[in-house]
């Protein structure tokens, strides 16, 4: 039980996929323009991560080592297709605003990375815990980035206008703004960590 808790919590802060492993930056830059998008993307990725980790951990002894990556991709793609269909059916607006980045979850390096680094070497329950932790870490990071980008870049939060006196900085809604926010957040978090360890 203790091990499960450890595998679960490490992904959220200590080994946060975006802020400390710097993986999965492509969706992090692309869909973090609004908090709503970020939540949708984070949940979709978490679902895929948990399910693919579970299945890969189940069949890890049956997969031949030489073709493990294609096998992982097939398993991941299955769940991504499921997510895509669910989004199209029940949240068409979110599906439209996420666009190409939902099918692109297939090649999200966090998911492939966890499959390769964790699920293919560990039993089912720890793999689920790891997937859930990493997914939530990804979600938390996305929402944090999106919070700054949406408030500064379009003067809104969850689609609601904050103040009409504030002139939004257009650049924050564009790619350079995303890189700035991610860079500053990574820098800030590492600084906090260095303060703690010293």
């Amino acid at each position: 039980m203790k091990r499960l808790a450890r595998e679960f919590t490490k992904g959220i802060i200590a080994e946060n996929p975006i802020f400390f492993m710097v993986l999965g930056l492509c969706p992090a830059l692309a869909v973090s323009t609004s908090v709503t998008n970020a939540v949708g993307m984070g949940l979709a990725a978490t679902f895929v991560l948990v399910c693919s980790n579970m299945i890969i951990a189940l069949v890890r002894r049956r997969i031949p080592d030489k073709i493990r990556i294609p096998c992982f991709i097939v398993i991941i793609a299955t769940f991504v297709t499921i997510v895509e269909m669910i989004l199209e059916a029940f949240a068409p607006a979110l599906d439209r605003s996420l666009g190409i980045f939902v099918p692109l979850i297939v090649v999200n390096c966090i998911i492939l990375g966890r499959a390769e680094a964790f699920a293919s070497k560990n039993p089912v329950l720890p793999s689920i815990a790891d997937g859930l932790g990493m997914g939530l870490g990804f979600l938390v990071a996305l929402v944090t980035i999106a919070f700054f980008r949406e408030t500064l870049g379009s003067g809104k939060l969850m689609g609601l206008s904050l103040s009409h006196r504030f002139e939004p900085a257009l650049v924050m809604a564009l790619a350079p703004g995303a890189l700035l926010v991610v860079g500053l957040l990574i820098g800030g978090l590492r600084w906090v960590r260095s303060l703690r360890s010293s």
Partner: protein
Amino acid sequence: MADKYFVSAAPHFHKKDESVARIMWTVNVALVPVAVMGVAIFRWCALGVMLTAVLSAVITEAVIQRGRGQRVTVRDGSAFMTGLLLAFNLPAHVPLWLPVVGSVFAIAIGKQAFGGLGRNIFNPALAGRAFLMAAWPQHMTTFTRPFAVDAVTQATPLVLLKEGKALGLADMGLNHFDLLLGFRGGSLGEVCALALVLGGVYLLWRGIITWHTPVTFILTAGLFGWVFGAPQGFFQGDFLFQILSGGLLLGAIYMATDYVTSPITKKGQLIFGVCCGLLTGVIRRWGGYPEGVCYSILFMNAAVPLIDRFAQPRRYGVKK
């Protein structure tokens, strides 16, 4: 004996009383005519923008250096220069929070985030300007008519040319003399070519800058404009117009010669100047923006380590 000789890393001071502060303040002195002409042409708003930008740049630098536990070096004039150059890149009638944000970005992100003076890859003032341009384009591209009491907006000559509203200076109701003195729309420090050249000559005379970067930059951009600048055919562009309009002189004399972000060797500076000029010409002629000096310098700043490596001088007694 031992304390008479000390070992330090290059580059070395070769004059007795040379220092960072001395060089920076000399550049600031060279910028005075430009500032005076800016105030003369755009009235007191220009002064407000300059003061705000300089003050916020200096305060940001002091706060960050204090916070990082370093020696506070705002007296060396480098933050002052960054603030002033940033103000020169802004339209005169911008709301005053704009220079504040720009200066804070220039110093905090453009300079201190890389480790402070001497370690920044990009020219801080231009980084601040590029950020403002991307963040609030409507403020950054609304220029006012010179000598107007109430702020009447007027497009810059390059915008008119780019949008096809005028084919030459005559269509804009201007002549080359107007461009030389600064009687045109534009950023507050870029309009008066005469003051910019005056400051440049002073810097050359004091040995702060060499001719290599500015001259190649200006000539390349001018020649490019002459060859490709006119939509009706080759070799019909206006050479002088290309040189005197936009921020070419300001960029070439004061920004592209920044010690930290430009190549060390003469050969490197020549390459740097020519490439800046070419990029400026390409952006002016075919790019999305009417003016490309800022982006071409920033772009070439990123290439400086590469140029420095390429233009390394041969060591004495060593075959290549």
